[in-house]
């Protein structure tokens, strides 16, 4: 595995949110994961962003669809378990109506993570089966450019595009992890 430019978790979170804002994203729906904590705290307090805290991820698919119809540029931030919760909405709304949406998904169960190996194992296959183009972000230094490009790709493709956020990007909470 190549060496990544290390940023601490708050700096990585800042880079991701700055990337979203530079891409023109102005509405973000979220559901927490401990690894997304720093990012969601930034989203929650950003005055330029309409933040929609969710109770279940699939409703975020609907909210972002409605906001797209109203002219907003949207992103949905969640864990990969939330991706699974969202599949019907992704299929019968996003794909069926051709709605662009940036999905920022914490890659639980990725190599280097613990406890969610089954969730991790299905993540890329499910995204692949849905025809969702997927990019894995391992280097926080690449966050801004990748977010901007995937946002443009989603608009161009008129479908969701996913970025898998890894622990290397979001920050490790203990040195041994």
């Amino acid at each position: 595995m190549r060496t990544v430019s290390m940023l601490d978790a708050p700096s990585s979170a800042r880079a991701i949110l700055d990337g979203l804002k530079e891409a023109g994203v102005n509405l973000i729906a979220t559901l927490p994961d401990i690894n997304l904590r720093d990012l969601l705290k930034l989203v929650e307090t950003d005055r330029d962003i309409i933040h929609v805290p969710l109770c279940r991820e699939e409703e975020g698919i609907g909210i972002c669809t409605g906001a797209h119809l109203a002219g907003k540029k949207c992103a949905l931030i969640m864990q990969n378990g939330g991706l699974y919760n969202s599949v019907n909405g992704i299929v019968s709304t996003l794909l069926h109506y051709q709605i662009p949406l940036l999905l920022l998904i914490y890659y639980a169960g990725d190599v280097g993570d613990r406890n969610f190996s089954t969730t991790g194992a299905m993540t890329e296959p499910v995204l692949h089966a849905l025809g969702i183009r997927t990019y894995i972000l391992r280097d926080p230094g690449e966050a801004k450019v990748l977010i901007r490009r995937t946002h443009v790709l989603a608009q161009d493709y008129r479908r969701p595009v996913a970025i898998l956020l890894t622990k290397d990007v979001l920050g490790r909470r203990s040195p041994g992890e």
Partner: protein
Amino acid sequence: MFSGGGARENSYGVSQMKRIDCFRAMAEIVGDALVVTGAGGNTVEWSACRPSDGNFRVRTMGLVSSIALGIALGLAKRKVIALDGDGSLLMNLCSLPTIANKNPPNLIHIVLDNGAYESSGEIKTATASGSDLVGMAKAAGIKKALWANTIEDFKRAVSEAVKGNTLTFIGAKVELSRAEVPPYPIDEVENKYRFIRYVEKTENIEILRTSLPASYF
């Protein structure tokens, strides 16, 4: 189930209306409000009562209220109405606390509660045995949530919500029956484009821009 005409009573003893009569009454007073409808009878009956490019039909069961919330958040000064069903809302009950939390004053969430999965074979939903969707909306934190028991009540409640500036949830018990109306005239992708173009025109904003040039990268 059918008693052969006239008003029937549901499990609360509340008389039921016809959904199409609710829609006919509504259509006179909602102006150019954007209206989001769920799969099944809501979509075709509403479209028959108010044909408009400002109608958006939802195909994912449960997401009517979520999509309406997204539109309401995106267009804070435009009235947005969700025409939900009991089966649909029961599938996405977490939408209620999310809506209450954002509290958009321009959103009107209407549930036509017929106590059944009408389009899926008329099997009963939980509301047929007493689950109270207005009670749930109130408990979720939506302060203005009410049952409308007659067409006049319903029309008044919708009218107040349209004229006012308060998040409103309206429940209406309706008969399990579908009016004879034409099928929905367009497919989903055309519905999307027409709806967006309608919003662009009526709000004087640009939503669908041409792609960035390749040199952007």
